[in-house]
């Protein structure tokens, strides 16, 4: 068996498992009862699914220009998916759309600005928090998160 065949088989395995993980992520987003649970499905299996698909693609294409682009997609995926999930989760929590009956513990409850009217001094200090700083200066990073 030549090296090319082995690489093609590896690529096939990566592509199929990546597609299955993406499918599981989709099922999770549909089936989970709450926004925060859904964000778990939208980050972990989704990110790994895309990364596996990219690995499969890289093994099949094997040209420098494609590898550069694939690397960029992977890096932006890793950098933006958690930030996007945090933004959605935070917005859901602040607007009271999180189902409290599904939570065993909620240590954020006492520390949260009132959803109806956030106290100005807290709102100011939180407006630019850590999550958005990671790559906030690059306008293209937003596209990376929306690609899926």
């Amino acid at each position, binding site marked *: 068996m030549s090296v090319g065949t082995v690489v093609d088989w590896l690529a096939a395995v990566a592509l199929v498992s990546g597609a299955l*993980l993406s499918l*599981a*992520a989709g*099922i*999770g987003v549909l*089936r*989970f*009862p*709450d926004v*925060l*649970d859904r*964000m*778990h*499905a939208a*980050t*972990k*299996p989704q*990110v*790994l*699914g895309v990364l596996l698909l990219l690995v499969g693609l890289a093994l099949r294409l094997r040209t*420098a*220009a*494609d590898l*550069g*682009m694939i*690397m*960029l997609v992977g890096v932006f995926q*890793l*950098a933006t*998916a*958690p*930030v996007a*999930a*945090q933004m959605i*989760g*935070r917005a859901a*929590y602040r607007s009271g759309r999180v189902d409290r009956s*599904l*939570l*065993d*513990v*909620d*240590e*954020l*409850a006492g*520390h*949260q600005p009132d959803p109806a009217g956030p106290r100005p001094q807290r709102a100011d*200090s*939180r407006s*630019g*928090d*850590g*999550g958005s*700083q*990671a790559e*906030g*200066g*690059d*306008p*293209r990073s937003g596209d990376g998160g929306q690609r899926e």
Partner: protein
Amino acid sequence: MSGASSRPTGRRRDQLIALGWLVVVWNLLWGHFSPANVLTGLLVGGSVLLFFPLPPVSFGGRLRPRALLVLAGTFVVELVSASIHVAAIAVRPRFRPRGAIIGVPLRVRTDLNLALTAELLSLVPGTLIVEVDREAGVLYVHVLDVRSPADISGSRERILAVEERIVRAVGSEAELRQLLTEPTEAP
């Protein structure tokens, strides 16, 4: 910008590094490096830095190759197990997972460490960042699939382990000492 920054040279250095990365990204997007791509990359990157300036988050630590490898290796293993965990819950019939939101005070309260830890812990098993209290250095984290109080304390320890690996990989000596001496407690 010059008024906010007490060390203009450090700020200038950070911007030059960012410009370099933007030029690399621009060339990768076009598929190849050429003088014309580098030139337009400098123009586009320069205007990005001019019109969308980053808050000054300077890198004060140093890179430790061994710890970086440990961080990357552990991350890959945890990302795979997290994905399988969530995928398994997603396809299990008639199962409604219980959740919890816990506050975890970090030991190193720099913006860079908060951002990196928040980012990474969303991709490791069971945890997802919901809210960041920047002054207090507390991350509020949603935990998926809670069955017992042990799951919650386990998640707390896992988050602090993520923080420790990050500080060991990119933190300064002072931050590393802070990590080893500061006690960890629930808020």
